[in-house]
C-alpha cells in the first residue's frame, strides 16, 4: 500500500514561530491537491514528507518508515518530488543525462534508467530534445524536463510543487494527463497548485491549508462548495463554479461538461 501517515505534525524553523500547527492526515493511492496562499505552509509540509525537514514534534511514516530514521537519499526510492524552479536542479549538458541522474542514484541499472528516462521524456513530448543542452531550451521546457526526471525514477509516491508555472495550454494538458495517469496506475500523487481550474480537474481530494492548519479536507466538490472558508484563506472557486453559484445552482460544478450535462438532463 502506498501510504503516508502524518501524526500530530508540528514544525517550526525558529522557536516560537510555528509554521505547521498540528496536522493529522493519511494519504492513500489517490490524487490530492494542497492549496492555500503563500506562507500557509504547503511547501514546508511537502518538504517534511520528503524528509528534507524533520518534524519538530510528531511523526511522518512513508510506507511504514519514519522519515526521521532514513536518509533523504534512501527515501528517494519511495517518494519523488518536482520542485518549483527547474534551475535548482539541472546541471547535465544533455537532457537525457539530466533525466537519468535520479534513476541511477536510486539504483536502477544503466539500461533500465535509460529506458525509463526515454519513456518519461516521450510522455512530456520531449523525445526530439533528448540530446540537447537543457539550458538551450526555454524555462517551460526545462520544467517539463524536471518532471520527466522524477517520473523516470518510477517512485510510488510523486509530489508536484507548482507544476504549471510558466506553462501554456498544451503544457498544462500534458501535466494534467500525467497526474491523472499516475493516479490511475495506483500511485499516490500530491500536487501543490494555485490554478483552481487545474486543481478541479486533477484532484480526487483537496486539502486547504491556512496559517499552518488544515481548514478543509475533502473531495473537490465538497471543498469548492465552501466559498466562505476559501475566501478566508484568500482562495477562489474555479471559474465555472463561480458562474454556476451566481446563477443560483446549489451544487458545485467543477467542469464545463458537467454543467452542460446537468442542464440537458434538467430540461
Amino acid at each position, binding site marked *: 500500500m502506498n501510504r503516508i501517515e502524518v501524526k500530530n505534525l508540528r514544525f517550526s524553523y525558529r522557536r516560537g514561530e510555528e509554521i505547521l500547527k498540528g496536522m493529522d492526515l493519511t494519504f492513500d493511492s489517490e490524487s490530492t491537491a494542497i492549496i492555500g496562499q503563500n506562507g500557509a505552509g504547503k511547501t514546508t509540509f511537502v*518538504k517534511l514528507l*520528503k524528509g*528534507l525537514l524533520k518534524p519538530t514534534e510528531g511523526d511522518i511514516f512513508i510506507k511504514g518508515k519514519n522519515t526521521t530514521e532514513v*536518509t*533523504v*537519499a534512501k527515501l*528517494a*526510492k519511495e517518494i*519523488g*518530488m518536482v*520542485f518549483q*524552479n527547474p*534551475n*535548482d*536542479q*539541472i*546541471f*547535465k549538458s544533455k537532457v537525457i543525462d539530466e533525466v537519468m*541522474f*535520479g534513476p541511477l*542514484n*536510486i539504483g536502477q541499472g544503466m539500461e533500465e534508467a535509460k529506458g525509463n528516462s526515454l519513456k518519461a521524456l516521450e510522455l512530456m513530448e520531449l523525445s526530439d530534445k533528448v540530446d540537447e543542452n537543457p*539550458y538551450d531550451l526555454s524555462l517551460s521546457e526545462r520544467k517539463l524536463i524536471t518532471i520527466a*526526471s*522524477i517520473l523516470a*525514477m518510477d517512485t510510488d509516491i510523486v509530489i508536484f510543487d507548482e507544476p504549471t508555472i510558466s506553462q501554456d495550454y498544451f503544457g498544462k494538458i500534458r501535466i494534467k494527463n500525467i497526474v491523472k495517469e499516475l493516479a490511475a496506475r495506483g500511485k499516490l500523487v500530491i500536487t501543490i497548485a494555485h490554478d483552481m481550474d487545474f486543481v478541479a480537474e486533477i484532484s480526487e481530494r483537496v486539502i486547504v491549508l491556512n496559517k499552518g492548519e488544515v481548514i478543509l479536507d475533502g473531495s473537490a466538490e465538497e471543498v469548492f462548495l465552501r466559498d466562505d472558508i476559501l475566501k478566508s484563506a484568500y482562495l477562489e472557486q474555479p471559474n465555472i463554479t463561480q458562474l454556476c453559484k451566481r446563477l443560483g445552482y446549489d451544487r458545485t460544478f467543477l467542469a464545463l461538461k458537467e454543467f452542460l450535462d446537468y442542464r440537458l438532463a434538467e430540461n
Partner: protein
Amino acid sequence: MAKTLSLYVERNTFIHRVDSINKILYVLVSVAIPLILPYKFVAVLLILISISFLLLAKVMRRVIPLIEFSVIILLSIVIIQGLFHAGNKTVAFHIARITFYKEGLSYAFTLSMRVINILLAFAILVLTTKPSELIEALVKKGLSPRFGYVLSSALQIIPQMMSAVGSIMDAQRSRGLETEGNLAVRIRAFFPLIGPVVMGSLIETRERAMALEVRAFNSREKKTFLNERQNLRSDNVIRLILFSILSLSIVLRVLL
C-alpha cells in the same frame, strides 16, 4: 531582515552622520600618524580617541569580536618578536626554559598598538557607515557608477546566492544524491550542487542586466542622487581638523 554582507549598525548618533569621505580620511590619517610619529604614546593616544568615538557611536560592543579575533595575530607577534627579534639583548623573563627579550617585546608592543589602531579606525568606518552610502560617496567623487553598482549589488546578491544553495541541495538530495559521508561522496556531490548555482546566477545576471537597461542604467545624462547629502559646515570643519593634525605631525617629525 534580508541579509546583506555588511557590518553596519543602525544608530542615531553624531558619528553616524559624519560624511563617509571624512571617515575614510580619518582611517588614512590615523594609519599614517603612528608611522610619521613612531612613539608608543602616539599610537596609544589614537587608540583611545578611536575607542571614544566608538563609544559615542554606541557600537563598542560590536568591536569586541573583532578584537578577540585579532588577539591570535597579536599573540603570535608578541611571541615571535619576543623570542626572535633581531635586536634582542636584554632578558625580560623566562617561561619554562624559553627566554623573552625586552627589545623584542617593546617592538611587538608598538606593532600591536598599530594593528589595533588600524582595526579600530576601520571599525568606525564599517560599523557606522552604510556600505551603499560609502559607495555612493565614492561614485560622486568619480568612481565609475558601473563599478559602484557591482560593489553594492554584490553585498546583497551573494547572500541571496547562498540561500539558493539550500534549495539546490534539497532538489538533488530528493533525486537520491548523497551529500553527507566520506570525501569521495562529497566530491561526487560537488558538480550537481555547483552546476545549478553557476547556471542559475548566469541566468539571473542576464535577466537583471535587462532590468537595469530599461531603467536607464546606461543613460548619458548626468546622474542625480536621491540621498544628496547636504554639505554640512561640520563636514568641512572635520576635514580641516584632520588635515591640520596630519600636517602638525609632519611638522613635528621634521622638527624633532
